[in-house]
């Protein structure tokens, strides 16, 4: 259901520029369907926002790991059509994560905080990136994991919290110019018991990624989950150089 809504919403964004009547209609429908949640979101006062962030922090501190299924839709300027994918994500505070995408273009993305691997089983190839060099990639990873890693989120983002009909909305806008170049706005939708339900990432170039999470658990994660050794015969590339 959400995919449909999101898809229509995104189409509205991209096709408004061409002012086609079809996009106006679909956009209007999307706005209509999406409107209730917007109308019912009430901004939290500062004290309540602080309390909410404190509760989130406590919950993360009690269980610094999380895993969930996800469904994602990307609208990127390179492509005319949005891309949908689904898979599972594991996260261990402060910066380890693993993301497996299934379907026709499977991939595994693994990071231990210092290294990032993206492995394509179909092509038997892997990309290797070094993190921590203040490259745009670091900003990208920070944005990618922001929904799961709300540790010290106030120091990285300006936060605007509001109470929705069911749960909360956190609108994050980056403080650092390096992150601003990659991310314009990041919205996190939380349930009443503070589980991440959906994230909406808008980039300055107009690209937008909406991710819906389900089946969140906070069971311990095997440390091997965040380790990656390229299988024999894998072609390894380093697209950003050394």
């Amino acid at each position: 259901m959400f995919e449909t809504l999101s898809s229509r919403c995104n189409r509205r964004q991209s096709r408004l520029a061409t002012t086609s009547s079809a996009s106006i209609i679909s956009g209007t429908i999307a706005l209509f369907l999406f409107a209730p949640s917007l109308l019912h979101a009430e901004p939290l006062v500062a004290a309540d926002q602080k309390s909410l962030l404190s509760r989130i922090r406590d919950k993360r501190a009690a269980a610094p790991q999380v895993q969930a299924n996800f469904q994602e839709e990307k609208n990127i300027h390179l492509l005319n059509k949005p891309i949908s994918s689904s898979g599972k994500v594991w996260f261990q505070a402060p910066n380890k994560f693993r993301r497996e995408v299934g379907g026709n273009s499977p991939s595994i993305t693994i990071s231990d905080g210092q290294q990032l691997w993206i492995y394509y089983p179909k092509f038997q190839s892997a990309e290797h990136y070094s993190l921590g060099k203040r490259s745009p990639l670091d900003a990208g990873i920070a944005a990618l994991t922001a929904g799961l890693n709300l540790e010290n989120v106030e120091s990285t983002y300006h936060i605007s919290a509001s109470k929705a009909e069911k749960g909360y909305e956190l609108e994050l806008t980056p403080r650092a110019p390096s992150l601003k170049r990659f991310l314009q706005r990041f919205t996190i939708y939380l349930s009443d018991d503070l589980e991440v339900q959906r994230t909406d990432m808008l980039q300055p170039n107009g690209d937008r990624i909406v991710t819906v999470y389900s089946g969140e658990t906070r069971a311990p994660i095997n440390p091997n989950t965040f380790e990656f050794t390229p299988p024999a015969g894998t072609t390894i590339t380093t697209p950003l150089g050394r």
Partner: protein
Amino acid sequence: MRLSTNIAHLVTQRRALVWTAVGLLSVACIYVLVTRMRLDTEVLNLLPKGFPSVEGLKVYNQDFTQVRALTFALVCQPDDVDKLEEFAPTFAQRLREQPWCARVLAGSPMETPEGLRDLQAIALPLLLNLDPRQFEETLATLQPAGIQARLHRLHEEIEAGSPRPQLELGLDPLGLVGPALKPFATNSAVEEDQPLTSPDRTMRVFLTVTNQPSIGAFDCQKLMREVKAFQKQASAGWEGGPLQVLVTGRSVYVAEISLSMRHDIIVTVLGSILLVSGVFYIGFHRWLPLLGMGCTLLLCCLVALAAGLLIFRELNMVTVGFCAILIGLGVDFAILIFGRYQQARDEGSNHAAAVTESVSNLGRAIFFGALTTAVGFMALMLAGSGGFTQLGVLIAVGIMFAGIFMMTVFFLFLPPNSPPSRSDWMFSLVKHYVRWMVANPARMLWISTPILLVLTVIAVSPKPPVIFDVSTHSMEPKRSDAGYALNTIMAKMPARWEPVIGIVQAADAQQLHDRWQTVDAHWSELQREGKIKGYSTPAALALSPARLQTNRERLRALDFPTVRAALKSSIAAEGFSANTFTSAFGLLDQMQAAAQSRAPLPDWRTQLPAKSSWWFLVDRYFAHDPLLTTGFVTTNEPLTTQAQKQMLAREMPVPGVPMTISGWSFTLTDLVPWSRHQLIVISALMAIFDATLLAILYRDWRLWLIQIATLAMAIGGMIASMKLLHIPLNLLNVLAFRLVLAIGVDYGIYVLLVWQKARQLDHDVAGVVKPVILAGLTAICGFGSLGAANNPTLAGLGYACAIGLFWSLTATIFFTLPAAAAAEPKSWREESLQPRIQEPKHV
């Protein structure tokens, strides 16, 4: 008629004639100075000639655009790092708007659309420059199936979440730019090789190239006036805490050094005149002779400067120190002559007789003193340094004229009827010392000899070691804003060190290409073997006309309509946006045009916009003459040892490729043996010259031995003092040793020659010891005043000479004299102590 009588006749009876000659000489010298004065501010001209590394450094500094580069740095407080990141684009834009700024690099060109577009603009010549096999492989990707497979793959990678396709499609939608730039890739990591942000993010660096017409001192000063005005208003709009706007670069240094020359001239000359005048007045309580001495020394300086300009056509900045040194040296003669003259007047002689006696008694000593000093300074020519050669010749000329003028022109300023001297406490003190020392030479020797010997032992002992500073910092001006900026940048940036450069020149483009291909392969091997940490060369940018021709022939076989059709259908099939591939079709058009035309390809330099950030990279490798290029080798450790230098000198060159290896660190390390050679061999030659001269002069082996021992212990005291006071030797102040030898030997000559001829020791010897002390003190003051110079080479030379002369004077008074007294028969000594004539009442 004796020479002394002739001189006395000339300066007392033919005064108008002498004044006219002095006036004409002065006018001629001033005319030369006004019409021919040219100053050489090139610091590299202080280094010796004949070293390829020095010549390479000069070529690199003169012919490469980097000499017009300025590096700006913004430094903020740790709490303001985000504000700095936001402010940086504003600052960069302000820089670009400056009329003196040709281009600015504020970040990696790969991060800006302009940077990517500029790179695409030069893709075609780089593509055609590929090795024919690689070119064939690259063209194979333009087969319809290849295009389809690539775009499908990119689509799938986008779906998988890889950032790579976005990067690739932004730069290289056709898939040809990447392979074309592959040889270039190792050079293009500007962000990584030259990080523009410090790790703690409190500093941002901005590289600029200026449009100043030349790198001469006046153009640099003009530029820096504008830059300083910009610095003052550059932080407008900054809302954080204190923000430093720093700037460094060659132009900043040149402006600072040339301006500090004026400061150095004023400070050292005024300081020298003030100190010397003070010492003279304390010694003689007379102003008119002081004025005469000053005017005579000024005449010496004028003549020497005019002679220097006529000989060398331009004078290096180090010769700024010449006047202070000449005043410090020339005043010795004036003090000696006047001391003797005054003594004769005090004994009742008239003006002409006193002139005759002073010239007669001291003429020989002054001649040999001037000769040894002149030879000592002329020995600077052996250093092979243009600047020091000039300094040596100027001082040698000046000191010889000082000797002549002090025995002629100086007397013009002495009033024929001067009042008698008042009580002379200094002469009394010296006389008492001489009387006591002559009576008890052993006691004095028991005190002075052990002290001087201990210092000599310390000097030759390996511990504490002599500090030998060969770092680039040792050449940097004191109190330098450019130096502060550079040190701040270096301190905040990750540990990096200056690379060694290999300069390669070729006769034509093909030869340049072939040479760099060979060098690139060789250096790659060195890197694999771990002999070097890394390297970068212009191999990718040195295009081969032969390859371009071959690959263009091959390009003609490509079916461009089919390629275009395949690309269009693949774009549609994979759902890519058409805008993403606009540059791909543009490149295909260029390729087709290159294939169909027989005309030469346009030079890639003309395709790169003048303001493109890529020029920063290109200019690193190419001089104004595109056939003059350089590559860079990063060593595993900072280059400090001879072993490292020798390894690089052995390994970096490739047979058949003429290469000049250079770089500041490499050159300074290369010069260490030269500097030690200066210190040991040439100083030893100087000592041999002095020893031979002394043997001829004294014809007495005991006095000769005493003088040699004095010189040895004075040098020992000098080295020991520098060790104990932690004063470093650098590449240039090692020259002080020969200067101290040359000047210090004079004190011994004055004292021992008078000692040999003395009829009344306390009269004759005290009569020369007092002027020698005054002369020594004035020379120490003259050299010591150089310590106030901003130019570190002058200041270091001044300190070292002042220390050396102090020990020369001390050893002469407290060792030479008692040793000579001890060596002579006692009976003669006692006899000589009886006064020959009645002492003047005032003494």
